[in-house]
């Protein structure tokens, strides 16, 4: 029946195919994250590379273990586990013991994704679920920031035995957000832009993150409304606070460039699975995140609020979708 060179090809619809498949989108996100990842490894050394590899390997293994035996090809083939592992790794402090990264990565895939039914069914961003679990479980290790240092020195804490505390022997330094929150010290604009500060592995270099975001926008993998809405709201809110008391509250530029703001706004909040569907819903979602970030950073107990802001709005996404559902054409008018 099947010819090698069919003269007439008859196929069911849809006839017009788009190139936008899940693996293609995932690949685009890898490319967009590549500069940031390389910069993170450059700043924090080989230890950072090991941490990222551990996260990705654990994510893939967990996905493999929990997926149905005869469907593993599809579950692993779309590359989403690799992306989750990479994103989680980029949000971790560079001196985190590797065994903690394994725990976080397994939680990210197991509790953040597989339990809900795999890719496309999860309510929360899996990488952030893993990070939230780690922050609640190991609060000290998750907030020990090392200063960017020599490429070949590795903090010995990353090789801590499983279940044991890692002893950080390299230079530690408060992150720009911590400095701002507890000592009211500003960090320079240039340092924040190029990333030569302490912080999570992949969040320090603002410039490269924006470049990655522009690439994704150009490839149409990303809804521009989300990062723009988040940044605009956060900057407006912090500008208002800054005008009230400039010695106490950070300025809008610092707010936009510090901490996980750009990484979260460009790569985490834009996850199509966990963000609303309609443009109106997306604006509500983005404004909510921007507002919550500044609220948590300025008035909350933690210096950083990006993760919780995104997770909270993830939880609100089904509700937003419900209330911003467009009217079906020709229906719903007579009920008014």
């Amino acid at each position, binding site marked *: 029946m099947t010819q090698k060179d069919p003269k007439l090809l008859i196929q069911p619809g849809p006839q017009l195919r788009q190139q936008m498949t899940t693996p293609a989108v995932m690949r685009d996100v890898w490319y967009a994250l590549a500069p940031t990842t390389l910069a993170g490894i450059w700043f924090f050394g080989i230890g950072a590379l090991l941490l990222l590899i551990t996260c990705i390997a654990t994510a893939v293994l967990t996905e493999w273990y929990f997926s149905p035996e005869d469907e593993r090809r599809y579950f692993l083939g779309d590359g989403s586990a690799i992306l989750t592992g990479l994103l989680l790794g980029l949000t971790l402090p560079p001196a985190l013991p590797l065994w903690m990264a394994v725990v976080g990565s397994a939680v990210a895939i197991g*509790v953040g994704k597989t*339990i809900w039914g795999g890719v496309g069914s999860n309510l929360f961003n899996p990488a952030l679920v893993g990070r939230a679990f780690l922050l*609640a*479980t*190991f*609060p000290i290790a998750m907030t020990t920031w090392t200063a960017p240092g020599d490429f070949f020195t590795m903090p010995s804490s990353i090789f801590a035995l499983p279940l044991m*505390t*890692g002893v950080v022997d390299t230079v530690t330094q408060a992150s720009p957000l911590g400095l701002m929150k507890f000592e009211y010290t500003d960090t320079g604009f240039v340092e924040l832009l190029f990333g030569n500060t302490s912080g999570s592995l992949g969040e320090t270099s603002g410039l490269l993150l924006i470049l990655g975001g522009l690439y994704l926008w150009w490839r149409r993998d990303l809804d521009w409304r989300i990062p723009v809405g988040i940044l605009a709201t956060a900057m407006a809110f912090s500008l208002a606070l800054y005008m009230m008391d400039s010695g106490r509250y950070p300025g809008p530029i610092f707010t936009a460039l510090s901490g996980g703001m750009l990484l979260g706004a460009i790569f985490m909040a834009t996850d199509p699975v966990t963000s609303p569907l309609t443009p109106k819903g997306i604006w509500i979602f983005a404004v909510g995140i921007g507002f919550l970030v500044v609220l948590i950073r300025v008035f909350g107990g933690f210096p950083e609020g990006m993760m919780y802001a995104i997770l909270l709005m993830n939880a609100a996404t089904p509700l937003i979708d419900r209330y911003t559902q467009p009217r079906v054409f020709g229906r719903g008018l007579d009920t008014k």
Partner: protein
Amino acid sequence: MAKSEKQAYDEFIKGVWRENPVFVQVLGMCPMLAVTNSAINGVAMGMATFFVLMGSSFLVSLLKNLIPKQVRISCFIIIIATFVTVVDYVLLATLPGIHKELGAFIPLIVANCLILGRQEAFASRNTIRMALADALGMAAGFLFALVALGGIREILGEGKLFGISLFGDNFEPWVIMILPPGGFITLGLMLLFFNWLEEKKKKLDAQVAATEGSDL
């Protein structure tokens, strides 16, 4: 005689495993989540529930023909509350530390739906012997669940089991495990595990039945 013994044994095993009050019936969640941040608290709570359940099942089964149907629930509650009061005072007198740790959850055993459920569904309809076997099984199942959850949370949260240090001084505590979210997450994962076991067993049974059927 032998038949009734087997029946009593069945009722016992049913409570411990097949119809485990926590993992299968999902009853008694309030004490389950609230007091299981260490194994010893789990044991204390389990023993308290054990005593209350045995006592009230015995009494309810004994009095089942005297209790009017219309007011049976309030009668059960009064009987349960009596035993809870006994447990409360005994713990206060003998183990004040644990009594303080368990706090309001000792009086709250009265409201444990597991205990009332057994009175309504089993003890008030069966002989004393069966009621005791059932209560023993259910209480043992509850104790098992409490100790398992408390043990896991204590091992990860403090690196200890029953207060004995397991990993030495360098242990990194999993802070979340001794906090409420740790209880919810661990219990959820344990339920998942038991459901998975159940499903596996069903599949196996179906396979066995299929092969036996083909032999015939």
